[in-house]
């Protein structure tokens, strides 16, 4: 039985005369890795901002983690995590300070935080780095830590907005190991990426073009439908229409 954790029905978002999201309807299931793809400017960030309670839709019915996006945005924020390539951690705080800061915002008790921080730093093999400033860390470490911080409060859903840009291929794959692990623990992962091989790692993928969802299915079915060898070809066929 598939349980919907995100329900979107007829979502429209307009900025003046420009329609950024043009009547989107889709569901995301609990515990799945959902790939949210589209060309630059297709409207992905607008949707993510609405789903995370940072922006209101112009119209449509939306429910995220059991809460309404018009009236219960604060509850939504407590139940989701967010990470982006552009901003996630405070560069001039240390590793431990960043964790403490995020744990504080989400109201995690100091006792629980200390236990979890110890486990986390051990898992990331960063025990010796706890007092280092974020600014001096390699990008791969930053990304792993940013992801860990985004799921530190054990959210129901985590939004990852282009999480893996620029890193080496091994680090990028180790990052995906963490994504799989989170999904295996029941956290729903909503991810955008420009790497089309990563689209293959998702349980289902949606592809947006000019504010509309043009396709939504498993990578295997999309490749079959568009008669394509890989997701790169599917993407080119849809986004170049």
């Amino acid at each position, binding site marked *: 039985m598939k349980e919907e954790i995100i329900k979107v029905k007829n979502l429209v978002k307009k900025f003046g005369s420009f329609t950024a999201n043009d009547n989107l309807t889709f569901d995301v299931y609990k515990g799945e890795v959902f790939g949210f793809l589209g060309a630059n*400017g297709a409207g992905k960030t607008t949707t993510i901002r609405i789903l995370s309670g940072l922006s209101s839709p112009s119209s449509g019915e939306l429910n995220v983690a059991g809460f309404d996006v018009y009236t219960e945005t604060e509850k939504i924020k407590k139940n989701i995590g967010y990470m982006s390539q552009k901003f996630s951690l405070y560069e001039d705080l240390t590793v431990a300070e960043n964790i403490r800061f995020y744990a504080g915002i989400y109201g995690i008790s100091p006792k629980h935080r200390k236990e979890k921080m110890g486990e986390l730093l051990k898992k990331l093999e960063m025990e010796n780095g706890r007092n280092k400033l974020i600014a001096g860390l*390699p*990008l791969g470490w930053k990304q792993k830590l940013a992801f860990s911080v985004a799921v530190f409060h054990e959210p129901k859903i985590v939004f990852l907005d282009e999480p893996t840009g*620029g890193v080496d291929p091994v680090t990028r794959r180790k990052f995906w190991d963490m994504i799989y692990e989170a*999904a295996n623990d029941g956290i729903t992962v909503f991810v955008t990426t420009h790497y089309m091989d990563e689209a293959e*790692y998702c349980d289902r993928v949606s592809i947006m073009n000019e504010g509309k969802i043009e396709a939504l299915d498993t990578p295997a079915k999309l490749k079959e439908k568009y008669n394509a060898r*890989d997701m790169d070809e599917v993407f080119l066929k849809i*986004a170049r229409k």
Partner: protein
Amino acid sequence: MIAIKEISKFYSETQALNKISLHVNEGELFGLIGPDGAGKTTLMRILITLLLPDSGEAKMDGLDVVKNFKKIRHIVGYMPGRFSLYQDLSVEENLHFFATVFGTTIDENYDLIRDIYHQIEPFKKRRAGQLSGGMKQKLALSCALIHKPKILVLDEPTTGVDAVSRKEFWEMLKKLQDKEITILVSTPYMDEANLCDRVALIQKGKILDVDPPQRITEKYPHRIIRARSDEIYRLIQDLRAFDKAESVFAFGEFVHFTGTDDNVEPSQLDAYLHKKNHKNVLVEEINPGIEDVFMGSM
């Protein structure tokens, strides 16, 4: 056209470049392939005379990057990784500005940029800061070309750009190559290596290999086996637990497996996965790609 000899560069204690030597031929489309922090930007900034090397020497079209820096600036076009045009000038004003700085005019070299500039010309009165990512990229490339450089240096022009725009950008580079411009381009996307004539794989300030992309993959000595099943997460876990597993990583819908030696047969893995109750198992040996080689040499 570009000759680099034992260039090293330190930032306090961090060694950004470790005795890099490299040659780029006239008219070549040459790729510097490596992740963030590999030293790609440092090397490029030395070549375009914005940064001094600590040791070693480099020549651009026979001109020394330290002694002849002023001359080099006239023959090189540079597109930095971060959008660096004037955001509050219009498209046309930016182009006009760069043409004037180099003592030329838009009309004089319009032929060279026509294909690229043509696509943004309808928006020529718009401020550069208000362009979309793809349009900014086209404007930056037009500005880097307006003085008709012999060498074009592009620092990660496709990072953060979607797959469609990336493809278009590479098509533009191929066309420029036909106009006898030598191009040095860096990218963290391994798949783009295949679009270059030759590539250098670079990691932690060192060059791992230089060759045409086909050669790099052909000469890779290890056997790569790929596997697929209905449960990719469990597949990765199980393959890592296989006693002769060296590296196991996801590659699109497949998982690539390298053994501790090259005697692991696909049939062995196939039997192992069936025993672990995987469904729809496919196991086969494949030719390595650039990404396999890069990961293998890290």
